[in-house]
């Protein structure tokens, strides 16, 4: 059985951009079973971390305390801005959203002198071609639910519906989530993640 198909994120693009007619309609159709409880999120995040360690990737699990939702997955990488060749550091957090019951992607980028990129700069680095209205709907600043500081975030209001469409059979929605949402902010998982899950599922079957 194939559980993890990579072209998913490409197809989900249309949905993220709101090209489907009515968001309410879609939610009504697909609202089922793509949400996660906090324990489910935590155990899938830990599973993801295991895979990452097997693959020698550098994801980490940050734990503030045992409370919901105070643990999140963390990843850091350097990106070269196309516009001026400037190197920036981006820190990604996969945090559990209590209100939407789905994973959420928060991130923050800083320059070599420590200055953070503001919303405008973040837009121009990560989504140079999108229109302003689309940007407001997708990528904006929000308060980080664990750190209580403003972070950039991808809006979670359609995550459930997207996960329902593409991750229905996935045993790890956290991994599915990262693979679908990550590429919008230059966070790409190695193909090995998909293969790894596939291998393991095959051996289970």
């Amino acid at each position, binding site marked *: 059985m194939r559980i993890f198909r990579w072209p998913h994120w490409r197809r989900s693009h249309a949905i993220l951009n709101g090209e489907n007619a009515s968001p309410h309609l879609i939610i009504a159709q697909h609202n089922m079973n793509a949400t996660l409880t906090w324990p489910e999120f935590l155990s899938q995040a830990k599973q993801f971390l295991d895979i990452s360690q097997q693959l020698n990737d550098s994801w980490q699990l940050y734990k503030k305390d045992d409370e919901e939702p105070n643990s999140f997955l963390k990843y850091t990488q*350097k990106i070269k801005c196309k516009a001026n060749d400037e190197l920036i*550091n981006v820190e990604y957090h996969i945090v559990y959203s209590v209100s939407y019951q789905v994973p959420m992607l928060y991130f923050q980028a800083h320059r070599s*002198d*420590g200055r*953070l990129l503001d919303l405008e700069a973040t837009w121009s680095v990560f989504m140079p071609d999108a229109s302003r209205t689309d940007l407001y709907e997708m990528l904006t600043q929000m308060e980080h639910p664990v750190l209580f500081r403003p972070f950039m975030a991808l809006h979670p209001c359609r995550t459930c519906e997207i996960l329902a469409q593409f991750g229905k059979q996935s045993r790890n929605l956290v991994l599915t989530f990262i693979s679908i949402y990550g590429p919008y902010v230059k966070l790409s998982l190695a193909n090995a993640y998909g293969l790894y899950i596939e291998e393991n599922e095959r051996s289970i079957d």
Partner: protein
Amino acid sequence: MSDKKILQFAPFESFVSPTFWHKLAELKLDYDRLSDTARSIFGHYTNRKASGCLLEVDYSAYNSEAQPPKFSHAAVGHIYNKNTIEEFKTLDKTALLADEGRQLLADMSSGRALNDASLLTRFFVLSFADLKCHSYYYWFAFPCPLTPILQLLNDPIKLKALPNCDACVDAIRTLPAEAQNFFVLYADEGANVCEARSLSAALSQFDEQQAEHYYYCFADPSEYENPAWLMRNYVALLLQQCPTLVGKPLKFLGLRYDQQLQLDNSLIWHVSQAEACNYAQLQFVGWEANRNGKMGPRMANMRDSMDPAKLAENSINLNLKLMKWRLVPDLNLNILAETKCLLFGAGTLGCAVARNLLSWGFKHITLLDSGKVGYSNPVRQSLYTHADAVAGNRMKASTAAAHLLEINPSAVTKGYVLEIPMPGHTIGEALRAQTTQHLQLIEQQLQAHDVIFLLTDSRESRWLPTLLGAAHEKIVINAALGFDSYLVMRHGGTREPVGDSPKDIAGLKCIAGQQLGCYFCNDVTAPGNSLKDRTLDQQCTVTRPGVSNIAASYAVELLVALLQHPQRELAPAYYANSRAGQHLETPQLPEGLLGILPHSIRGMLCNYENILPATQKFAQCIACSQRVLAAYRSEGHEFLFKTFETAKYLEDLTGISEFKRLNSEIIEFDDDQFDMSENED
């Protein structure tokens, strides 16, 4: 090779995490204070999927032991954080670099660097932290002795090109990650031996025979063809420990891991240093160039992420900006941030209005009030606390302004303690000078603001600001309370109208913005001394507590809607003709960005109802009519003092004394016939 190539190094580029500055600020404030002695710090660099040639620092730099992240190695350094920008500027940079260089050299010659190779990756930071402005001036240096040139014997080759590559990689992998920063690989192809050795093992019992098979390995954070800067110190250590290597060919292996943790891209440089080095008379290099490629310091302004006021401001704006997402994409928040509001009265209404203004992102708020905070105030007047009352001498205007700043430190708030002169409240000779002073202050403040809020507790105290608001063409928002009723209204504009006259809509009546009445336009009596002959419950505004919050919210929401309208206070007010409405379906009132824009909102709590009457200007109004405005313009304070003397003066001036006499019989309304949409034309 005829043309001699010289090996060049990729200089380190400093890469600072914001947390490095956060921690520095904390240490400076809580521990170092005035001390500016050097602090030991740690940096780190990675040779996995390296970008540029970075040396990074973050909050962990100040820990007592190095804690490099996974796939990274430690670098050892100091921070010299100076107390003033002058010290930062005038410090002898050459001397500092030489001093750091000598420390490095001492670590080499003492053999310490052999046991702890991270001492070879050296850096230091000269800094000045302007904690008030959240600005950090800094300059990194990566000290390195100016040793004789290294000749490159041939082009660098990749590790995977070695015939015994696999054996080398296997040998390297036997070392724990943290020992892979500097080590020696003994690879004798002929004897089929390959093993990794620590620096101390390989160099302290140096064997020249074996050295022919040595690869001097190091974790190479450079992504370029050139090895990272730290190799310079490596070479210096090597030739200092083993001087016989001068002039001999040496093999350096820069380890570079890729994403899959493979070493395929690692590079090998064959080099040779022809001249010996005089370690006694060494010069040092290593200051980092700034962004413009010049030798000089850098400055990072961290205000956006460190100043709590700026953080609050960003978060507040964030909340408001969310409205623009879907609900009101065309909402203009800048207008609100720029509009200056002057509040007459800092009581129940004043406090509530001010807080609502902050919620909407208004930043300029000035309050005028003459009262002190009393014991009964804090429960209803949301900007005061019991402590303010206990203090006994806190004036409402200034206390409210201060507390607004506590709520939003980026607001610009002021409070002035003054009496608002009122018609019919005679001013004695003794107080005349003070009143003149207050009048001047009021006029001056009024001119400096865009919006006037009338939030006092008596009718007559609203007269002067109504008149001044009209005379200076300001937006005037008025809120008044009864026991369980309230009135919120916008006064008609006095600006010269621009653009088209309002559009006619069948079934709706319309009053142009400049034709709308003021608070006094419906009155046929001048305000007198309403505090005279009143019992306490009549004097104080005795109201149901919710009324003031409701009215204050309406007042601010009405202003916001008005400011979003292209004509602002000249926006027309439409209202349904109630009589016609009985036969026909009432058409929709035209809506602006935030819905309809009524002239006034009258509501009561006893039945939870609002009505939205619109009324026209009254030609004989005692506050906004042409005659009154003309008298104020020509006579100024003289005229005002006459009205303070007796309110009758105003009634005579406008002619309402006459009007009152003629119409006295129709003053009594029958409730059933009372049409709130009065003044039909």
